[in-house]
């Protein structure tokens, strides 16, 4: 197989403690290999990258790029695409549309063009997994996977109610097998079920869920315990109750406490860090400092940000009642889709404006998170694409983090009173290239438990992004000089060179086959499809890698 040498670049490989060191990289069979001992070894091709910045390929651990909800959003918003960037067909690549929700081919090319080589969709209703896999197969170049929605699942709630936690655990394991999912997601635990059955929501962690005598706290604890016991590579991925509501920081703190030391990943935490009173917008404020303190002092918690940027975008969420809330606020078109026994979904167009006090504060609160978490290994960059902004905003966010002046310039353009409602103006920290490499690659790979991603050591997948250093940091990160994925040159100066397909990551935890009977009989009684047609065959998955579970 071909042997490539990436010669003389300046490496930023935080996992291997390499911070700006000039070193060669050797690639073979899609992997990074140790430098050959013999001086005689001749590579098939040498990429001379002296003076360039070399990082592992980017890893987006929380985005919405596939499945029923994303596809409905595409359909809902033709106007979003008309004047947006057009992806033209070439001899080797497919055409596509963009806007806030790009078509699948466009999504793959755009991520790769940005130097991102791995992305995870964060909210797939299990019943929609077959659909999600089909879209992921049509999302080229990047490696990918998804988390299945479980926080409002009827079987889980029933088994909590009846005091059979072992069945919750077996069910989750079976569900990951059946759907080809990678992780377990909880969205507004219990709240979506309340929306589906009454049109309301849940506001406290100890309120009871309609039809099921359980609380959000119990749901969260049962699932996080199961995930912990199964030793899944990624901890439970949590979208807390009360997203977007002033004062919700208390719920977020309570959620972190409720984990009782078990690992948990709190997602798009920007949307969950608000102080103030729900009925008085003028009291809206940041409570990032106290939440960040908690994260700084507790190693079981990781977060991604869900940064808001000023732009037109689409809000899409597995949080059905949130969709209705936003529809009432925005007054524009609204999609809501309830999935039997499993989940909900809300989609509304949204525009974040720098003239808006609330939107500006949301923007500032996201940045506070990056700047107040001391250990960058605990925090991953995300815009919750497309909720806070499209993933194409990452280079701009990088520039904001590395350059305090740039933040101050933006701060001048927003309502000045936000300065009294958050600490952003007082934060002087500036990220180094090494810290950027952590929050955009090394940390998300670590949080996901993907040992071959996010670093450049021997054995790693040869996903490598190479930048030409520039004074304009945003430009530097927008168009990498080279991007390699699985050892192939996929992008050169923004142009696709190899439209490869990438693979899907799955996990297959063990479970007691005896428990299948109970799951099967519940399934037959309540679903409208057959048990055997719910499960996705390996042949259907296409290229996939099963990440093994470590039982130390």
């Amino acid at each position, binding site marked *: 197989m071909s042997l490539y040498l990436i010669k003389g670049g300046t490496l930023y490989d935080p996992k291997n403690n390499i911070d700006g060191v000039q070193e060669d990289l050797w690639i073979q069979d899609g992997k990074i290999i140790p430098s050959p001992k013999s001086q005689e070894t001749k590579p098939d091709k040498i990429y001379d990258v002296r003076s360039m910045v070399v990082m592992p390929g980017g890893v987006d651990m929380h985005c919405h790029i*596939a499945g*029923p909800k994303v*596809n*409905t959003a*595409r*359909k*809902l*918003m*033709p106007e979003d*695409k008309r004047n947006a960037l*057009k*992806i*033209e*067909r070439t*001899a080797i690549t*497919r*055409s*596509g*549309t963009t*806007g806030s929700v790009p*078509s*699948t*081919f466009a999504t793959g090319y755009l991520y790769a063009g940005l130097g991102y080589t791995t992305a995870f969709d964060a909210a797939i209703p299990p*019943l*929609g997994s*077959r*659909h999600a896999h*089909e879209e992921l*197969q*049509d999302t080229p170049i990047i490696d990918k996977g998804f988390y299945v929605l479980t926080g409002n699942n*009827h079987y889980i709630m029933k088994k909590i109610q009846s005091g059979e936690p072992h069945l919750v655990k077996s069910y989750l394991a079976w569900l990951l097998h059946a759907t080809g999912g990678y992780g377990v997601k909880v969205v507004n635990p219990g709240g979506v079920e309340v929306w*589906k*059955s*009454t*049109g309301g929501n849940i506001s406290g962690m100890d309120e009871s869920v309609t*039809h099921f005598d359980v609380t959000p706290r119990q749901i969260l604890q049962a699932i996080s315990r199961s995930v912990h016991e199964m030793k899944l590579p990624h901890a439970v991925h949590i979208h807390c109750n009360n997203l977007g509501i002033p004062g919700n920081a208390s719920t977020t703190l309570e959620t972190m406490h409720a984990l009782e030391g078990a690992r948990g990943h709190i997602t798009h935490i920007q949307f969950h860090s608000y102080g103030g009173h729900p009925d008085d917008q003028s009291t809206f404020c940041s409570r990032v400092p106290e939440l960040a303190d908690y994260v700084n002092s507790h190693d079981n918690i990781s977060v991604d940000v869900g940064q808001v940027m000023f732009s037109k975008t689409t809000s899409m969420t597995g949080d059905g009642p949130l969709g*209705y809330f936003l*529809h009432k606020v925005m007054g524009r*078109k*609204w*999609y*809501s*889709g*309830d*999935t*039997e*026994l499993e989940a909900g979904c809300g*989609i509304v167009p949204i525009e974040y404006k720098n003239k808006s006090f609330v939107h500006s504060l949301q923007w500032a609160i996201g940045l506070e998170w990056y700047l107040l978490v001391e250990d960058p290994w605990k925090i991953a960059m995300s815009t919750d694409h497309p909720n806070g902004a499209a993933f194409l905003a990452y280079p701009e966010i990088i520039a904001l983090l590395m350059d305090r002046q740039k933040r101050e310039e933006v701060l001048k353009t927003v309502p000045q009173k936000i300065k009294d409602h958050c600490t952003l103006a007082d934060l002087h920290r500036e990220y180094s290239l090494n810290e950027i490499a952590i929050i955009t690659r090394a940390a998300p790979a670590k949080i996901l438990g993907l040992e071959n991603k996010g670093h450049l050591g021997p054995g790693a997948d040869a996903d490598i992004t190479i930048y030409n250093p520039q004074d304009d940091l945003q430009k530097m990160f927008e168009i990498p000089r080279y991007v390699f994925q699985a050892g192939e040159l996929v992008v050169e100066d923004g142009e696709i060179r190899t439209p490869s397909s990438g693979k899907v990551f799955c996990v297959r935890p063990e479970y007691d086959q005896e428990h299948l009977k109970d799951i099967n009989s519940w399934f037959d009684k*309540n679903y*409208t*499809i*057959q048990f*055997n*047609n719910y499960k996705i*065959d*390996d*042949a*259907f*998955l*296409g290229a996939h890698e099963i990440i093994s579970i470590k039982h130390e």
Partner: protein
Amino acid sequence: MSLSQEPIPETNKLKVIPDATCTHCGCLCDDLVLSVENNKVVEATNSCEAGKTYFLNQQTQDEPEALIEGKPTTYPEAIDKAVEILLAAKNPLTYGLSETTTEAQRVAVAITDWVGGIIDTTTSIGRGSSGLAIQEVGEVTCSLGEIKNRADFIIYWGANPVKNQPRHLSRYSLLAEGEFLPNGRKDRTAILIDVKKNETAKEMDPFLKVKPGSDFELAWTMRALLKGIDPDPSVEKKTGIKLDLIKNLIDQMKDAKYGAILFGAGITHSPGNELNRESIHLLTRDLNQFTRWVSRPISSQGNATGADNVLTWSTGYPFAVSMGRGYPRFNPGEFTAPGLLARKEVDAAFMISTGPMLNFTQADQEYLKTIPVIELSSGVSQFKAQPSVSLKSSTYGIHSAGTVYRMDHVSLPLRPSLKSPYKSEFEILKMIEEKVLIKTKEK
């Protein structure tokens, strides 16, 4: 892309295939148990009568695999000719896609992309699940299981499931025992709104006879009443329904826990259907200020919903997409097949698994006689004139595996039961795509 398919047994012995999906209507019931002997389905358990007939009457076919200008030939020869036509055309149209797998639909979109053509599906004639209403006002909807498990109030509107979706009532809606409605029918209220007392009426609590062409006015009257506005009394005459009756209905609807409006071909296939649909979407949205309501079309056919999804994820738009400028553009009217043909704006047509082309006018059909037509289908030809190229495929769900999307966008695998001498649409389209790519590289 991959197709998982268990090999169809060589033996003639009886084989039983459980969990088979029926593509006969948009219900896509996936619980059929098929007994197969001597390459024939001899028994189809759980199926409705129509589905049973569909499975049991599959004929062994002995037509040629391909024709060029009506003369028998082989797949490779016919595919060469088809590719020649597609590449020679300035503005080729790909149309149909409702009666095949998403795997095949994905390749059809790819081919259209490579040749810079226009692609449209049967959604443009109302057979899909999508429409323009969702783009205008959104949609509040659900998977069919939500109706089964929660819907204590169901309105069938312009629909006749007893005749057209025979197992809808027992499997997904009115008669099904649900998670929160253990007594099935007894726990539900059901109303039919239609222009005539159809076969479904006898299952209903009341039947409301609405005058043809006044569904829109009825929906808007209901919206007005919800908002506490007194409608103009003229609506009684327009809709043929007494205002008191409508008021009473609205009061009942507000008292439901989870209501569902299931609308059929009477809404989706009628003139002005987009406005009808939009008014139902808006009514549903308004009802959510009082209690939970959802709505959904139930008249989609075959895998039209799969085609909606495939076009949407690969181009951003559900139908009527032109790739003529090298990137997808969406314009219903301009890029929908019937209009394009009537205006003679395409110079070749690639007709794939179209199903009956009922909505095509005489003028459309006449124009199709004057341009090269490639027809890929498992059934009988839909064209009056002999197509330039005919490609015969095996039948999805009978002979070939793949994925299909139910009317509520839930996707299901197919479990083929019979052997066929023909290749699947997916296989044939894949051969075409490969050839197109080779030829475009040569250019």
